[in-house]
């Protein structure tokens, strides 16, 4: 499964469970949708352990975590690094 799909599934099935008919667009602001400090931590653990991509702590910013689009871009860049 591609990164985007895995991320969306983890976000909207586990971290911010949302009825399938109401899954937000990939540009939606995840912090507004309820991604709080606990869930940010869980998201990072998911990316590192399940997607196998190491995300440097100093790069974790609201901009990079703010939407599915931003996350995918950041994860892809980190995977290449």
């Amino acid at each position: 499964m591609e990164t985007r799909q895995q991320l969306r599934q983890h976000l909207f099935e586990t971290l911010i469970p949302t009825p399938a008919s109401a899954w937000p667009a990939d540009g939606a602001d995840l912090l507004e949708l309820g991604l709080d400090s606990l869930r940010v931590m869980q998201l990072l653990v998911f990316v590192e352990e399940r997607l196998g991509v190491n995300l440097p702590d100093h790069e974790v910013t609201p901009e990079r975590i703010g939407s599915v689009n931003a996350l995918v871009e950041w994860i892809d860049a980190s995977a290449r690094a």
Partner: protein
Amino acid sequence: MDRRERPGLTPDHAVILPMPESLYKLLQDAATKHGGRIALVAGDHSMTYAELLYASDRAAAYLAGHGARPGRRVAFCFRKSTDAIVALFGLIRTGATYVPLDPAWPVERIRTLCRDAEISLWTGTDPPPAVPGIVASVTSKTKSEGGASLDSAAEIEPDGAPPQRPPDGVTNILYTSGSTGQPKGVEITERSLLHFSQWVVATFGLTAEDRVANHAPYNFDLSTLDIFAAVRAGATMYPVPERVKMFPYQLAEFIAEKKITTWYSVPSALIMLQLRGRLEVHDLSELRHVIFAGEVMPKSALQGLARRLPNAAFTNLYGPTETNVCTWHRIEERDLTSDEPIPIGRPIDDTRVWIVGEDGAEVGNGDSGELLVAGPTLTAGYFGDGSSTDHRLIPAPDGRGRAYRTGDRVSRGNDGVLMFHGRLDRMIKCRGHRIEPGEIEAVLCRHPNVKEAAVIPIPDPVFGNRIRACVAAHDDRSIQEPELASLCRNELPSCMLPDEWRLVDRLPRTDRGKVDYARLAAAETPNSPDGTERVRVGQSPADGD
């Protein structure tokens, strides 16, 4: 007899008494002694104490013109900002009782609390939601179009009236989770805030040179240290922006850049800093006090922090919202090396504590029982709820006033130091927030397909606890976890949202018919192939699927 002749009722009576200390006087004194010093820095905005007093005087007159006065309760719903602090001291000066609400809460919760507190005036960063009863609002700057804004307050002349005080002594009402399904309003007195801030300044030696971070939201009692102790000392307040709080590396950067000297937060914020803040790359040498409260600090995290912050003294404060802080423990070398949990310590000044068994009699050293607390920081009661007040505030064992039944299981060692052993009821601590499972269960049971629900804590090394919701549908109905999650998001603050869901056929019960929470906590099954988790915890493994 002419009323004016009665002793004690002359109009001059108040004037000839010595001026008592008041919260507003803390600000006036700071402006007198440290007028040119920076009182607060929020984003690009900063204010000196002289400017803060000037603005607060005007805000008070403006807010009074919109209905703030002694005996009234006013909503206070601000994001961290200079406006918030100006409005806060403005409201204090009017003698109104302010009710802090978190702008991040769902609208439905804000409505419920406004109704419960009988709010007629709203102050906030943004305008209020539609709530019957709110007849006026004063908001931040340009946010309100055509409405009253705090900006306009700067243009009016203060009315010169002396600062008023609340007739019942209640400065603010902090809402906490309630076991019956409705939040409870804890009445915080001016006396409590004056006493606590004095104790903090003396104990930690706060001075005008200090830079105090404000991490906790305004509706959380931890923020009273950051605000009132800082003003009493003439120190500078640094509200931590919401988005910085969520990102440990940026939070560490904030502490370094602002040269924060005094930090007070729940342990989970510090644990996140220790795990992901990369403390080793930041210059945190200015940090001299790291204070935590609200839940149990794990020993390993404390050891990690102590290694990275050699200049900081660590202190554990303890106390439910109803007592603000009532005991404290300064972390010593032996606390870092021993295997024992961190003590909650000894009572703060003028505070008395007892540990009593179920029969109400004091237990011996080493035995655990319920902690009772009496002293100046005690709440006046629960707003509009006399029966809860009488249930929790009982006559003090020494006959001097009332004592609060904390519901916490505590023991006292031979050295007089208190240890915390958990709750006597079902209350959950999660990231320092107290959460009554009954409140989440009540929301879940509002779903028409839900027959019963039980909420239990699952211990978590970083966040204290995670919340597991176990839900059973009516026999002929079905439910899905996203639906339930949405329902909760519409009514509950994010700290109360379940982290795990278990859909069950029925809740397990004990022989006496009570929900068997221990079995719910033990229930674990792997995910089924379709990704949903369906656990038959009501049945023994033999009759499962």
